[in-house]
């Protein structure tokens, strides 16, 4: 892990208070993997903010790292005010990453709201590996939906729910996920959600509000789908020393997001 000052190459203000930040990467730093995050220092807050990698790519041999975050407080507000050419102090990449299996070909991704941030990078990575990607993407208000066109191109099927009902299906993504999975596994009716190839041991990846993650895991684990979740917690350092970023498993075990996380195997985490 390294501390560095990276230049803002591009910053885009999206609807729903979302900010899409592109930084020119430094070749001396480790290439981030999907699920990992960085600590981004702000000018106005004392401690940095942990923000997951939204994408990483090269253009003309130059690396770029992207972050997608919602302005929710002072730290993210401060970051949203950066302009092209400004520098941001950050350190990372931090934590473990979503496991990507060479011998699997189907992935079910479930994103709630801001949860799309790390799952987008996972989507591009899985796409390059030739995966069939089924993305379930739910938001409160339809204007929060990001990158719909690109996601449509990357995914074999894209399921959208909005609570305001202005796009996709009205309601919660957990319900649509539950219905789609049950429909397939319980009845195996055709034409189904997955084609024959896809039906072979899919892997499920989830990121969103805690309650959504829990609900999705209940469903996926019920059907014996290997599931990985991305969790978050407040943290001070991101380097493994403050010991502040803890989450507790159903069994009462304490894990540190920055060291043992942020990605956890759902079966182990929920002790199901």
């Amino acid at each position: 892990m390294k501390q560095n000052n990276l230049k803002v190459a591009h910053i885009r203000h999206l609807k729903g208070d979302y900010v899409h930040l592109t930084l020119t990467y430094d070749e001396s730093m480790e290439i981030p993997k999907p699920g990992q995050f960085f600590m981004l220092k702000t000018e106005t807050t004392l401690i940095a903010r942990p923000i997951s990698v939204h994408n990483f790519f090269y253009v003309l041999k130059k690396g770029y790292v992207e972050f997608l975050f919602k302005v929710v407080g002072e730290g993210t507000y401060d970051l949203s005010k950066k302009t092209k050419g400004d520098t941001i102090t950050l350190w990372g990449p931090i934590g473990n990453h979503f496991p990507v299996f060479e011998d699997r070909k189907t992935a079910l991704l479930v994103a709630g709201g801001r949860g799309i941030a790390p799952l987008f990078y996972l989507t591009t990575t899985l796409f390059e590996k030739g995966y069939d990607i089924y993305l379930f993407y739910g938001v409160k208000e339809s204007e929060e939906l990001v990158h719909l066109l690109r996601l449509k191109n990357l995914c074999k099927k894209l399921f959208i729910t909005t609570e305001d009902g202005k796009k996709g299906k009205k309601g919660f993504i957990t319900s649509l996920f539950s219905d789609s999975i049950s429909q397939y596994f319980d009845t195996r009716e055709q034409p189904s959600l997955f084609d024959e190839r896809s039906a072979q041991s899919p892997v499920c990846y989830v990121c969103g509000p805690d309650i959504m993650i829990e609900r999705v895991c209940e469903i996926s684990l019920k059907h014996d789908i290997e599931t990985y979740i991305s969790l978050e917690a407040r943290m001070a350092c991101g380097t493994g020393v403050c010991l502040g970023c803890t989450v507790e498993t159903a069994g009462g075990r304490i894990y540190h997001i920055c060291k043992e996380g942020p990605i956890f195997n759902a079966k182990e985490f929920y002790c199901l």
Partner: protein
Amino acid sequence: MKDFNVNLSNLSLKNPIMVASGTFGFGFEYRDFYDTSILGAIVSKGISLGPKQGNYGNRILEIKGGIINSIGLENPGIDGFVSDILPRIEDIETTYIVNVLGSDSEEYINVVSRLKDIPRVDGIEVNISCPNVKSGGLSFGRDLNQTRELARSIREIFPKPIIFKLSADLPYIELAKIMRDEGIDAVTCINTIQSLAIDIDRKEFYFKNIYGGLSGPAMKPVALRVVYQVSKEVGIPVIGCGGIMSYRDVIEFLMAGATAVQIGTANFCKPDSAYRILEDTLLYLQRKRISSLEELRI
């Protein structure tokens, strides 16, 4: 660049910049960012006799100008320290001080007895002032007789430098006098300040243990007060600690009477903070043509 050697009774440091317990892990964690051997001393995360899992629930809250933490002294215990940590710190070429925890005198003494024969351990810092635990911690330091007994017992068994870490929530003048009289080498002033935070949406205390410890710039004036009073009234070397974010804060503590300082929360804010603060402090001393830190004292 000239190093500024400082002496705290029998504890000799190559420069006055230390890193505070609980903010620097065990020292090896920061190797990715800079050569930690340049620091005056590294103070480890507190070590208890057995391993401690730490507190459940929220552990960190940022407030204006500070952080409140309720970690709960999570650590691998003395066995874990010896087997897992020690091999990883052997090659750190600076003074290494182990912070010692206990819920009663017996535990403190047992940990110290285990540390006394480890060559890599150059000294200990005894924490009698943690605000985040139910037994030991602040409640221990409030009992002056008990603390005197503890200082005496530890002095008897531990031949290397001993520091006691005090708190503004304790009778620090009296405690510092006890430490001086019992031959303790120095006192660290101060530990985090006992604090409270409330989540008004849930109508709950933010921390499961109710209290947390405040650190960061918000506590600096309080730390300066304690450093000034102890160094003026007691005559024991003082290590200043509390909200140091820049070399200017270091100079303030030295002017208030500290012989050395500890960088704490700043290590969280940016991993290379202690390195920058040390570099800037040495540049300042050079620029001002200061040959001995004693000259700085008001």
